[in-house]
């Protein structure tokens, strides 16, 4: 009887520790990151122009989007992903040659140490409101020839109007995609290309008409170029 009680208490304790730690991290993230990043999906209910006021990309579905290893290393060394910031028009300044990105207005991202980055990455990976979108994905990573992939990405689908597929090559209003494969879950890549508005109704990315096979080819191209990155 006595033994059973002790065992029971130990079990409660063992469960209790990670739960409490988890709640701490949630609070910390809310405090340190919530001033810029959305951590819930309320923005989806606001009028579209809330997109213009965002200071950072939403993190409310981070666990359905990122690779944990990438989060862990990026949070310690946050290199720029969006050449023109979180809301590009806010960082555009007119010039004689047209609008240019005013890089002076792009702030550096906060840096975490390894211990914090590990805890935060673990916590962000628990934010998975869109499991159903991921489960519905049929994408199986495959191969594509560089030339064909590039034609799809550029000439046929016009993705290069807004995204770079190599450093300094391509549009700058979207996140660069030459490291997308290292950063994002393959199923997310495919699901987002197919239905960006299902993830974020105010996405600045057009909902295309690419069929499933074409979407998978585009994802394979991101795999091809991403695996060549250091």
């Amino acid at each position, binding site marked *: 009887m006595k033994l059973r009680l002790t065992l029971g208490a130990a079990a409660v304790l063992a469960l209790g520790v990670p739960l409490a730690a988890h709640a701490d991290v949630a609070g910390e993230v809310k405090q340190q990151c919530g001033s810029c990043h959305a951590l819930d999906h309320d923005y989806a209910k606001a*009028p*579209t*122009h809330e*997109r*213009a006021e965002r200071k950072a990309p939403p993190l409310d579905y981070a666990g359905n989007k990122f690779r944990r290893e990438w989060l862990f290393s990026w949070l310690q060394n946050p290199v720029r992903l969006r050449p*023109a910031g979180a809301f*590009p*028009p806010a960082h*555009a300044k*007119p010039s004689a*040659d*047209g*609008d*240019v*990105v005013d890089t002076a207005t792009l702030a550096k991202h906060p840096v975490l140490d390894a211990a914090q980055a590990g805890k935060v990455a673990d916590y962000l990976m628990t934010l998975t409101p869109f499991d159903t979108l991921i489960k519905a994905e049929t994408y199986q990573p495959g191969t594509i020839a560089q030339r064909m992939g590039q034609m799809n990405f550029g*000439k*046929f*689908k*016009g993705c*290069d*109007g*807004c995204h770079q597929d190599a450093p300094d*090559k*391509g*549009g*700058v*209003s979207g996140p660069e995609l030459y490291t997308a494969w290292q950063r994002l879950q393959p199923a997310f890549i495919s699901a987002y290309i197919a239905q960006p*508005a299902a993830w974020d109704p*105010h*996405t*600045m990315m*057009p*909902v*295309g*008409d690419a069929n499933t096979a074409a979407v998978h080819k585009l994802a394979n191209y991101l795999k091809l170029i991403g695996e060549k990155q250091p």
Partner: protein
Amino acid sequence: MKTLLLAATLSLVSAAALAAADSGKQLYAVYCTQCHGVAGNGKGINAAQMAVQPRDHTDTKEMSARTDEELFKVIQHGGKSINKSVLMPAWGGNLKDDEIHALVGYLRELCCQKN
């Protein structure tokens, strides 16, 4: 009395038109300025890297040559639908019809209400 009523109706209509134009402007800022420029002149931050240049929406002559229906169509179905560049995306999956109408209204302001 009749004139009064007419005046009242007219001011109602213009108030509604103004509200629509305002939201057209906000939608334009979110979706269109990335390519067409913060001033609507076709020189957005993406333009320098693009093979086909975005239309200058302040070009009165070019823009006046298009009907509202034509503008609606190219916004909804993209450049490809009018045999123009795929670099002009189709926005029908992002925007509702009334939002596209608001954008058409804003394009008319941009092109043709210069002072």
